[in-house]
């Protein structure tokens, strides 16, 4: 049994190191789709998080709770929603995005945004109000003051980005429903792992799993190095 595991690990590593085109095509699709979804949602989500933390408009409580609820909706439900939107009879049917990377990006944006909004709202809510007041009274524009706060909150905001990215890179439900798991087109790491495991081809599944593990390690090291001197403040 142990020998079997070792052989599988060996095969997985050789698939990765020999730059197996099928494996790397899957990795490429996974990262390009998830990065695109993250890039599109990143700035609007941070700004919305800031607005929810700093402004007191009517209905803020409802919006906050709605976003927090959206965080916990299963990805397969979001996949179903996007599927219904993109299907030929759907509202966005004319876009013909069903079973395409664009459709997957749209689905991942809906998964990613609530996580980033909620976590950035929590980060901005925890910031010392004097940081905003100091920046503004020293003549900083609205945009520069927000940027200053983002700089002050770089660790929790980075954590929000990493949490959102991890969620979309590893989700399987939405990608499977909206993307359709088409080889070289919409097959990403989670859908490929699910497929290969069901086929009994564990080597490829392990190879792709290793990529996700290595990524988690790299992201944590990046976070650790950026944390720098961001220690709890005494003033």
């Amino acid at each position, binding site marked *: 049994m142990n020998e079997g595991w070792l052989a599988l690990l060996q095969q997985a590593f050789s698939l990765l190191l020999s730059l197996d085109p099928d494996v790397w095509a899957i990795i490429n699709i996974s990262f390009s789709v998830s990065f695109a979804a993250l890039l599109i949602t990143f700035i609007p989500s941070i700004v919305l998080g800031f607005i929810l933390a700093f402004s007191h408009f009517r209905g803020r409580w409802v919006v906050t709770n709605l976003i927090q609820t959206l965080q916990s909706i299963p990805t397969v439900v979001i996949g179903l929603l996007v599927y219904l939107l993109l299907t030929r009879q759907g509202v966005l049917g004319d876009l013909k995005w069903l079973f395409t990377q664009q459709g997957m990006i749209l689905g991942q944006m809906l998964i990613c945004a609530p996580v980033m909004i909620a976590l950035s709202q929590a980060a901005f809510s925890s910031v010392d109000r004097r940081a905003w*007041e100091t920046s503004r009274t020293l*003549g900083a524009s609205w945009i520069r003051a927000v940027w*200053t706060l983002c700089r002050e909150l770089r660790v929790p905001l980075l954590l929000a980005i990493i949490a959102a990215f991890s969620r979309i890179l590893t989700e399987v439900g939405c990608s499977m429903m909206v993307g359709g798991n088409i080889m070289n087109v919409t097959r990403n790491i989670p859908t490929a792992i699910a497929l290969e495991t069901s086929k009994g081809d564990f080597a490829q599944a392990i190879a792709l799993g290793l990529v996700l593990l290595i990524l988690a390690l790299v992201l944590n090291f990046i976070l650790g190095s950026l944390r720098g001197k961001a220690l709890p403040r005494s003033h």
Partner: protein
Amino acid sequence: MAWTTNLSTSKLAQIHAQNVLMTFQKSTLFSVEQLHFKQGDVIYLQGDNGSGKSTLMKILAGLITPTEGTVYGQGFTPKSWWQTDSLLGKAVYLHQHPYLFEGSVKYNLTYALNQLKLTASERSSRIKQAINMAQLNDLLGHHASDLSGGERQRLAIARAWIMQPKLLMLDEPISNMDKHSQRLVLAMINQLKQDGTGLLISSHQTCGLTALCQQHWHIKQKTIHTSMHVPAAEAVHQPNTTELHYGTTN
């Protein structure tokens, strides 16, 4: 309540507050019919804890909107068309416990300079003066969070001074500070006064500080009383009188 900025021909930068009412959780904090704060004024703001001294300063700085009334600036350099309705950045407000941004002393000191259109020589001259005045020479490379309370306050005042503001409001600038830092801060405030900066200073323990002031605003019984008579130094309990007087004569 409407924030308006009237740019008249008047040369002196000033802030006017009219019929201002500030409430907090449905109870009145303070009200005042008229307040004028202009360049050259050095005003001592007195009031008990919780009377609203900081709130008043923040209102004049444009950081808080009063419940009722009008606050507007006059004689300031016009800003971009989209910034004309704001008092922000006109009268600079310094917190009692100043907030220093994450980063070095130099980063904090030069934070406001990026907003100003200065030549390279003007910029470096201002930085040098600010460093000398606050005696921060040896601390420039240090992380701001490593500074002591007195050093933080000196850096905060130097950071505001570097902008050469026309109006500056200091909230308890020498509270909880050692004698050396008190002397330096007082010397910096004195320098600002001589430069013609309008100063609004709140303080509990104020011998040297009140000696600098020419006007007195007192928040008492939810009203702001203004007078040209500043309470005598002896009237206020002040254990560090000698040091503070020394500071003003520097």
